[in-house]
């Protein structure tokens, strides 16, 4: 029993980090450009194909250089998309922006089929095998997901908090006019943000390749659940998105203990609906409400 719980915890946390990465990836673009990138699902898939199809199979690169090259290619693709679509659309109405990103997803989808075909690809000897942790058998890919995700989150925090480019990104997300008045090139900052976001998409594709295999629908579910993670955490807030992702991953995994496993996905979406109905501003909102309540009760005690 203990082993089962540990197994569920590890795979739940791993998937939670995947959802968290998805939430981070689209929150970055939401904060910088004010638009929801509905094409992110296809970009994750594209990342998987670039990594396995091009870098591993066609170029025959070893794993690490293949990952680096794939991430760089996706980041460059991100800059192009930012310049052609996201930046010009930043001031347009929401509907136009939504339609544009959905269509971009379709174009990418067709492009992927055109370039790599509609076959599923499986990287060989990549993040495969199992390891024993405290008597539980855990797939190595889950362990790698957890480690890599923590590194990405730490690096991203460092970039946003400590580097000049990252601070500029934060300013652009808070107030674009004021940012430009500080001498920040807002468009360049947006393009860098999109490049980072697409790079993270690529890493998600790489990390989940051994679990889902690289195919057209590999990221449909994680893209949707990443969206749930953002809603549960609190939209537009990076730490909250991470918390939302982890909670979602663990809860849905343990729900599998009680409910039939086909209901696993239902749990995630039901959780999102509950949050939308009762806590529309997510965990951040709940935290704020509790803080307000404590402050109020303290004031009452004093008076």
């Amino acid at each position: 029993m203990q082993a089962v719980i540990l197994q569920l915890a590890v795979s739940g946390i791993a998937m939670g980090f995947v959802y968290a990465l998805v939430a981070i990836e689209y929150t970055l673009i939401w904060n910088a450009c004010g638009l929801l990138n509905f094409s992110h699902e296809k970009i994750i898939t594209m990342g998987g194909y670039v990594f396995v199809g091009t870098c591993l199979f066609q170029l025959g690169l070893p794993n690490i250089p293949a990952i680096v090259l794939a991430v760089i290619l996706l980041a460059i693709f991100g800059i192009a998309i930012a310049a052609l679509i996201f930046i010009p659309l930043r001031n347009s109405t929401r509907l136009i922006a939504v339609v544009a990103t959905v269509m971009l997803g379709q174009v990418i989808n067709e492009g992927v089929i055109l370039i790599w075909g509609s076959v599923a690809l499986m990287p060989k000897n990549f993040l495969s095998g199992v390891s024993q942790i405290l008597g539980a058998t855990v797939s190595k890919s889950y362990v790698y997901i957890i480690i890599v995700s923590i590194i990405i989150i730490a690096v991203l925090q460092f970039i946003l908090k400590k580097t000049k480019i990252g601070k500029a990104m934060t300013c652009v997300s808070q107030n674009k006019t004021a940012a430009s008045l500080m001498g920040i090139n807002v468009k360049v900052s947006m393009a860098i943000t999109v490049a980072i976001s697409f790079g993270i998409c690529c890493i998600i594709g790489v990390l989940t390749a051994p679990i889902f295999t690289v195919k057209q629908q590999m990221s449909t579910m994680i893209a949707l659940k990443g969206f749930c993670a953002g809603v549960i955490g609190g939209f537009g807030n990076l730490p909250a998105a991470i918390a939302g992702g982890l909670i979602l991953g663990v809860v849905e995994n343990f729900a599998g203990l009680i409910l039939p496993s086909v209901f696993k996905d239902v749990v995630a979406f039901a959780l999102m609906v509950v949050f939308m109905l009762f806590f529309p501003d997510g965990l951040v909102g709940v935290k704020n409400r509790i803080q307000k309540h404590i402050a109020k009760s303290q004031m009452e005690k004093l008076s």
Partner: protein
Amino acid sequence: MLDVENISTYYGNACALYDVSFSVTENEIVSIIGANGAGKSTLMKSVMGTVRPREGKIVYKGKDITHVQTHKIVKSGIVYVPEGRDVFTKLSVEDNLTMGAYSKPAKAKELNALHEEMYEMFPRLKERRKQMAGTLSGGEQQMLAIARGLMSKPDLIMFDEPSLGLAPIIVDEVFDRIQAINKRMGISVVLVEQNAFMALSISSRCYVLENGKVAMQGKSSELIDDETVKSAYLGM
């Protein structure tokens, strides 16, 4: 140092500025007064390039900056402290100041010295350096916006309604600092104000904007005694 020559600026088809010219020379305080909607902020935004004039020319230090990007204008030495302060509410006071120096790459040591200089000028900011800017009072936010503007060591700083929504005692403090910036640091100042009396009393020259046009201009000491200005803007 700054020459705005016959600019006209439109929002869609609405004309916000019509054939406006004004100039600022080294080391002076120029004020721009006028009622709500007279085009004062539009004039500032046209200089900064956040809105673009349809006609006319803006020359700064001999260079045409009419079509230069905003961030490059900031780099060339003009800073605009916008109406409503526009501080980064979710960044600390300290980080806000650091961002002010964004356009002038500085070493950590120089940056620290700049921070200290600002804290000396605005001691309240030092007390609150770790606080989020959004939690500051209106007066403190205004001080922060001014200090943030000074962090890039500009040659020309433009203030848009710095007294807006502040208590009278704080307004005095703000104007005091603006004068100090001009006198002690030798920075030219453009002051856009609805508080015409304050603006006229600390500036050397003044432009009066009315419905997007320059209605009057001249020495502040003369305008302050002008009958039309008195009745329209000073309420006397």
